[in-house]
């Protein structure tokens, strides 16, 4: 890290110059200067749904957890059953506080017998590190911030694997697996994960080789995509975003993440999560579609009759469905698919209907 950087200056990824050369619209995001779009969100969105796109997600953080006590420690802090991850495996989990609030949601990769890598959300990286540091003291384990060691590229779309293996001569791991590889002649990790609902991988690579690899993938026809398309893609497949759907004020049960919570492991917050599961939450996170014109936005009130019954956590125009769509927390008795609601979009009531997950189902056969 550059020691001359002021504390409030936004950070730049190793690909900042590439984004500028491509004429990206750059915005501040979680303390970073990130590309929100290059040629247009709809085109980028469509490239990922029909062909292949790449996202610079180097702002995301990485934490390495290693040592004889790694499994026991991760079992304490993560909501899922970490013991189920085989070497080379991946797992989605919540990092909860004692009251079951979600500090972050993240992927854990098992790189070796007692060596794990956690990928954090950029906005939560420092908080996660402090939390892990606080709880690791009783375990024979080292917790290292390795965020500066990696650039991260998400290559996603039905043709991602074909294009990548041809362009970079790589063997790619299947979904939910991680593989050691060499990218640009440097050690790298290839993860069979993503945030778009499409097939593809996320590559953790040496920051120094990120620019030439980016250029090679551009030459191979991979479409550069910004955070704008990343958001519409994840929303169509109902992946939560921390800060929108998830926060320390929400537990995993109301967020629909009960499937990644295994209370029998006794993780921090498991008692609160078990109680929420047993009682049933007062509100639930639901996907919804606008029935006519109008685009819902974050924070819009959700109405039934003349009563506010919830709040939109993420709202957008869905490029695949060509209509307003989003996710909202609503009163649990109004959470069933098909329930008619109204979204108050800046004073105009827009009819909406609770949908089932996902809002858009990628056609995996297209590859």
């Amino acid at each position, binding site marked *: 890290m550059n020691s001359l950087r002021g504390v409030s200056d936004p950070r730049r990824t190793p690909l900042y110059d590439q984004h500028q050369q491509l004429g990206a619209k750059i915005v501040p995001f979680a303390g970073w200067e990130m590309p929100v779009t290059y040629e247009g*969100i709809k085109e980028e969105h469509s490239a990922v749904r029909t062909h292949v796109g790449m996202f610079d997600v180097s702002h995301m953080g990485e934490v390495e957890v290693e040592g004889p006590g790694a499994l026991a420690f991760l079992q304490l802090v993560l909501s899922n059953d970490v013991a189920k991850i085989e070497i080379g495996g991946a797992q989605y989990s919540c990092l909860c506080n004692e009251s079951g609030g979600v500090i972050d949601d993240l992927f854990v990769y098992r790189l070796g017998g007692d060596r794990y890598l956690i990928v954090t959300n950029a906005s939560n990286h420092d908080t996660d590190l402090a939390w892990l540091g606080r709880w690791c003291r009783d375990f024979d384990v080292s917790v290292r911030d390795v965020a500066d060691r990696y650039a991260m590229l998400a290559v996603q779309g039905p043709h991602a694997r074909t294009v990548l293996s041809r362009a970079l001569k790589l063997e790619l791991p299947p979904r939910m697996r991680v593989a050691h590889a060499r990218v640009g002649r440097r050690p790298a990790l290839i993860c069979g994960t993503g945030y778009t609902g499409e097939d593809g991988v996320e590559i953790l690579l040496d920051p120094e080789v990120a620019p030439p690899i980016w250029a090679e993938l551009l030459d191979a026809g991979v479409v550069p995509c910004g955070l*704008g398309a990343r958001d519409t893609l994840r929303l169509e497949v109902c992946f939560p975003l921390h800060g929108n759907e998830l926060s320390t004020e929400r537990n995993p049960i109301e967020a629909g993440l009960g499937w990644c919570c295994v209370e029998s492991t006794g993780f921090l917050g498991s008692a609160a999560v078990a109680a929420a599961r047993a009682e049933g939450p007062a509100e639930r996170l639901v996907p919804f579609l606008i029935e006519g014109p109008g685009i819902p936005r974050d924070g819009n009130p959700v109405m039934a009759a003349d009563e506010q019954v919830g709040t939109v956590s993420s709202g957008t125009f869905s490029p695949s469905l060509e209509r307003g769509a989003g996710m909202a927390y609503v009163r649990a008795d109004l959470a069933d698919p098909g329930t008619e609601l109204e979204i108050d979009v800046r004073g105009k009531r827009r009819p909406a209907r609770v949908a089932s997950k996902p809002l858009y189902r990628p056609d995996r056969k297209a590859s």
Partner: protein
Amino acid sequence: MSEDNYPDDLRYHDQHDWARLEGDDHAVFGITWYAQDSLGEVVFYDPPEVGATIDKDASYAEVESVKAVSDVIAPMSGEIVAVNDALEDAPEKINGDPYGEGWLVKVRLTAPREAEGLLDAGEYRKLLEN
């Protein structure tokens, strides 16, 4: 359209709206090339109703891109006599042809002399440069 463009026959409002005067007391309104470029691909135009009264400098409609909502400001006061219905199915015309097929409303002006307070193309370009 990819190149910026500000026709000489229009009057401009500093909130990036244009007016094309027609006859003594009618005008067509829309948003400028700069406005559509800043907003990105327009995916929704929420027009006012025909017959609605609009006031100079006040919002009379909204245009939305995937990520953002923008109020459309009336460059002059009047009554809406027509809205561009074609934009309901093809709001992207606002990006492709902001001064032609991407027009937003036709207005019967209640104070045609307001045109004198608007910018000409050269003045508007200067505003954008600053």
